[in-house]
């Protein structure tokens, strides 16, 4: 009995500091933000009404969903191509692929966005070269628009898409593929009818991660969109700091959390968490 009590005490003492810290520094202020959304500038559901009717807010929501969908498709496809080599290549190919995945992964989002500015801006690498070889006379607008945002976000998210794909490809049994080949299926056919279906859970997991990440993405769209291709996260920032409307910023945040939560709940119903990781 005494041991049981001391166990409970021990667990409480060890676990309490972090739970109290996050309760005070995360849960409580989040409720404060929810409270803002119902009380600023005046009590009521006014901000949520505004969300439903304001054409600017709606266009930002639609743009965010569109960009997130495109980025998800591009990054999962690109990640799939490089993961195949990372998991199934020769030892040398694996080292090179791993280098190309991990180096960008560990470099900060700002440096990577800046790299795209250096490549895509009017006086950047691509425009300078294209003009030097006389291919174009005027610089192409590659940045400060949706194109730049999509390129930068895809680049940022590919490494995140790689990890769920890699674990599903690693657990795949080689003998199945060899059997398909042995039964006369071509390389292409083996890939599309055996390899891809067997990595389905990895594809779903990585698409979910990328889509959720891109919904709340802030830094890359703000830098590469140049204020012209505003996504939800930047809209929240603008509502807090530029045209102070804290209530609306808070209401958008609440809607974003609910949306992401619903999305994850939906996916957890269809894909068991174990299959995803």
């Amino acid at each position: 009995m005494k041991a049981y009590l001391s166990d409970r005490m021990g667990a409480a003492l060890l676990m309490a500091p972090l739970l109290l810290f996050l309760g005070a520094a995360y849960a409580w202020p989040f409720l404060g933000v929810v409270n803002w959304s119902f009380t600023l500038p005046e009590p009521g559901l006014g901000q949520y009404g505004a969300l439903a009717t304001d054409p600017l807010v709606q266009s930002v929501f639609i743009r965010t969903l569109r960009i997130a969908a495109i980025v998800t498709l591009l990054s999962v496809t690109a990640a799939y191509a490089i993961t195949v080599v990372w998991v199934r290549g020769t030892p040398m190919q694996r080292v090179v692929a791993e280098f190309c995945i991990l180096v960008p992964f560990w470099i900060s989002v700002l440096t990577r966005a800046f790299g795209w500015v250096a490549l895509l801006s009017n006086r950047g690498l691509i425009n300078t070269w294209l003009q030097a070889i006389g291919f174009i006379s005027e610089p192409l607008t590659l940045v400060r628009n949706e194109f730049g945002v999509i390129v930068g976000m895809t680049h940022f998210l590919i490494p995140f898409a790689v990890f769920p794909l890699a674990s599903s490809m690693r657990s795949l049994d080689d003998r199945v593929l060899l059997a398909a080949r042995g039964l006369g299926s071509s390389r292409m056919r083996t890939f599309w009818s055996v390899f891809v279906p067997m990595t389905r859970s990895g594809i779903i997991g990585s698409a979910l991660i990328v889509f959720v990440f891109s919904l709340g993405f802030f830094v890359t769209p703000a830098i590469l969109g140049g204020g012209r291709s505003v996504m939800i996260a930047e809209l929240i920032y603008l509502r807090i700091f530029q045209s102070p409307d804290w209530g609306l910023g808070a209401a958008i945040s609440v809607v974003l959390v609910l949306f992401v939560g619903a999305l994850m709940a939906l996916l957890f119903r269809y894909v068991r968490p174990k299959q995803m990781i």
Partner: protein
Amino acid sequence: MPTYRPGPVSLILAALVALFLLLPLLAVIPVSLTPSRMLAMPSGELSLRHYRALIEDPRWINSILLSIRIGVVSSAFSTVLALCFSLGVWMFQPRFTAVLVGFVLLPMVVPPVVSAITLYFLLTSISGVSSFFGYDTWLGVAMAHAVMTVPFATVLILVSLSQLDRRIDLAARGLGATVWERATRIIMPNIKFGIVTAALLSFVLSWEEIGVTLFITSVNAITLPRLMWMGLRDNIDPAIAALSVILIIITVLVLAVRSLVGRLRGAH
């Protein structure tokens, strides 16, 4: 055992993706060597003036020192809290563990911009009470970073605990070790690699944190990413290119050393 290798089409596609991944990192090198004061390709001569600016301009040095201080404090804080919490989970396996762990992981799952507005609310509320611990103070930033990094530290420590053999702890318990002795002399020495990794990851995440930092600082607590952000938004400063080159080289070196060490270990 025969293995199934990727064919030529796969290799070509993967090479294109690899090129896409490395291209922006390579592009900053020529920009960092431009003699121009604005973002441009060097035409003809190269210059190291932007590297010199990093050393001579006190703003860069100050922000680097501030980022290190915030990183060390927030990483120490979040690693200790994550370690205690994970030990509690592993040693006592209390009821509602899944719910509690889920709660701790929230800052990792919630969109960062929502965490940012939440921490902005927290720090502006604290500012009303204390002037050196709230909005735009280094302690405030360190606390906010601890909130953001603690889920990652917890995951890493829980993973390394899950690989630990419970029987060594049971043996210590059976021989009469107290909870404190079991934690510090049996369990922690066996997961030190996980603890160190958690601390390092927390530091790196704090060092490059920008999404939240942007919401909770204005003029005083200018961390390195915050300073880069200012230089990127207004008039693009090529010193950022020079700094990026240095950060990329450090990353490549660390990764190379790590994989070399891993290979040497594997060889034995």
